[in-house]
């Protein structure tokens, strides 16, 4: 039996930069009878991974250890956080020196990392813990005829054997969730590619190019809207909206939580959607 209470881990970026993801996620989960618990957690460690592996793993492990103390699986709507938490757990499992160091540090706070602390991404919770059938049953306003391009993020998908979200080369989870709300999932070749956000600050030109490639591809495949399930991906697509406002109309990006919320018949403001942003 899947748990219906999770320790909510929104990560660092959602609150200041993408509050609608938080609002919409809470709204849909609550509508689907999932309870979220809250406690103060720290950075997942992803940004630090470029700089210092040990520090990034310690940060991730602390979150995991807190979740273990609270006795709940972690649930994160951010794919980077998800990927990092899984990666850290993988390395901790692999590398005894790292594990000893991390647990040595955690001990001071009465925490302990071990192998079996569950981490779930929002998509897995929806597709597996709640179940596609349950979602279908709750959909009151199916998004009929809407052509949606599922934008898988990278860090939740790869390396596949570490993050274990879905088949890393031929995933289906997102498309299944899109069809479950009555929309049509379009096939597009670049669906598994990077949105460009990780190098947004370092190399904006290249970052935008990466995204432009994807958008063109999705557009060519007939998509009307891009669906994301990652803080960073959505931020990236929003960035472009800010940079090139005219493009918005051609291919907007929406968080899957928002699409699901619409299908569940939740009011716009509870999904962080302005009235004009309906799809």
């Amino acid at each position, binding site marked *: 039996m899947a748990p219906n209470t999770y320790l909510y881990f929104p990560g660092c970026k959602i609150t200041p930069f993408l509050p609608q993801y938080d609002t919409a996620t809470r709204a849909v989960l609550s509508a689907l009878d999932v309870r979220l618990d809250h406690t103060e957690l720290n950075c997942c460690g992803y940004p630090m991974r470029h700089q210092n592996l040990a520090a990034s793993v310690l940060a991730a492990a602390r979150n995991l250890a807190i979740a273990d103390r609270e006795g709940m699986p972690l649930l994160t709507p951010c794919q980077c956080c998800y990927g990092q938490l899984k990666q850290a757990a993988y390395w901790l499992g692999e590398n005894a020196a790292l594990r000893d160091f991390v647990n040595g540090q955690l001990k001071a706070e009465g925490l302990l990392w071990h192998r079996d602390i569950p981490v779930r991404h929002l998509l897995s919770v929806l597709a597996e813990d709640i179940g596609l059938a349950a979602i279908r049953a709750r959909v009151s306003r199916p998004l009929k005829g809407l052509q949606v391009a599922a934008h898988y993020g*990278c860090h939740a998908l790869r390396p596949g054997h570490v993050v274990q979200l879905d088949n890393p080369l031929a995933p289906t989870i997102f498309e299944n969730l899109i069809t479950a709300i009555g929309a049509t999932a379009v096939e597009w070749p670049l669906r598994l590619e*990077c949105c460009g956000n990780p190098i947004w600050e370092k190399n904006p030109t290249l970052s935008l190019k*990466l995204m432009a490639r994807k958008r063109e591809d999705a557009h060519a495949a007939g998509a009307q809207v891009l669906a994301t399930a990652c803080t960073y991906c959505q931020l990236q697509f929003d960035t472009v909206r800010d940079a090139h406002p005219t493009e918005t109309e051609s291919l907007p990006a929406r968080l899957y939580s928002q699409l699901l919320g619409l299908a569940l018949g939740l009011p716009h403001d509870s999904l962080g959607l302005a009235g004009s942003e309906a799809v």
Partner: protein
Amino acid sequence: MLTSNVATIALGICLAGTAWRISRWFRSDIGSESDGLSTGRRLAAYGRALPRILAHPRFWPRTRIFLWEIVLQGHLLQQNRLRWAMHMAMCYGVLLLVLLHALDDWTAPVFFADYYPTLNPFRWLRNFFAFLVLAGVLGTAIRHRTHTRFKRIRSNADRLILLLLAVIIVSGILLESSQILSVSVFEEMVEDYMGDDDPDEVAALRHYWATEMGAALPVRADERMDDGAAGQMAHEAYCASCHSRPQTAFLSYPISRLLKPVAGMMDALRIDNWLWTLHYLASCLALACLPFSKFFHLLATPVNLLARAAGPVSDGPRTLRAARRALGLDACTHCGVCTEHCSVAPFFQVIPNPSILPSEKLLGVKRLAATRAPDVEMALLAEGSFTCTLCGRCTRWCPSGIDLQDLWQASRRDLIQQGFPPFYEQDAATASSVPRASASTLPGHPPLSLGLTDRPETFWACVQCTTCTSVCPVVAASDDPRRDLDLTPQQIMNLMRLQLKEKAFGCRMLWDCVTCYQCQEHCPQNVKVADVLYELRNEACRRAMLSPQAIAAESS
């Protein structure tokens, strides 16, 4: 009088310092927002803005909330009642002591017609306020030693301030104690107020003060004949209008009982005078220090809380942003709440650079605003600064209402200007002009890497099929990878295989990698391409914080 001169000087320093501090709000420039704007123009801009702020329809309703926050410290109350109590005790203890004791000449007549410091309830109140402050100081000191995850970060300035406060209060209490005991003071008073009246009456009074008022007067056997009524009458006639019973001084009186055995000696040395001087000078010192220490927050914090009514700093006009940031810096009490809630604080456990923690980083930003010296300290500040994820939690929790999020973003711009770019832009070319620090490499640290790049087995299985390069979205998005990226992923792997790791540092692919793991996922031979690139980044960062000599020593 020397003492009044001292007070005047202290007050002068205080006022000048305050003016100077306030002027800094309009002189310092954080975030390069006021580039090209003179202090005068900025002041004028503020002057123009102020009426608008005050007239803003949302200002006054909001200000009520802030008054609640300022007066009652509601923010802190919500977070931690014990801390709130301590801070309130200190804050209001000091404020009321200043108001009702230090400035009694001016304040007391406003409330009371016949004020005298040795009268009740003032006597009791003074003790009570002192008690509050002492309890706050003591509690804070204990808390500093036991209660925080990041004990090391307390600065000496913080400790000195607590010490100064303690000295003022303790000296005040001891002064009162010694005055209660002092025979000399009694004699002087009798001299002044009774003249050479009836010696019996004096004796009765003496007896009364010795038994009832706690003075350390020797009581002779013959005086015991008296039933004390005469003493009481004399007391009421001459003293009671100015002297309440000292027992209400619930701190000083018990201490005076303890000191009674040495009262004679104390009196002989006129310890009371010395204590008075100490108390007075310490208070003057505190007054003089006020604008130069975190005491200044007594002024800056309320102003900042009021200023926040105008919304986030970045929403305000450009001309005002730098001033609000400088005000924010002054409003910091270094209370450490931000650090307790900091999302990236765990990194500090691995990289012992205090600038990772917001409360400490703020000190660095203060320094940045003041000096702009491109030194090791600034390198450390940069390392800490670019570690922040801008989650905004510090801003949400800050009891002083500082827009920390905005400060971090603004100071990053300054750091970049000063030649301290984020780690991913620190390569060999820029690094030479920049002083290095070594915080990342303090001894006793865990291994930084999984050691992939140094193990030949990592690359054994490579069959040179170029798949990693072919699937790389960064390569794909580039019109000319060699021009844009220097090396392709496969070429970096081959450099590692050829044990030419050095050559990979400084290549743009390293930092343009989006870490999407396509290469690693698609590698038919399971070479950990992306993990290797990560490891190289880690190594590049580590080197960016090393001196060239240290790097040379390592590679030899």
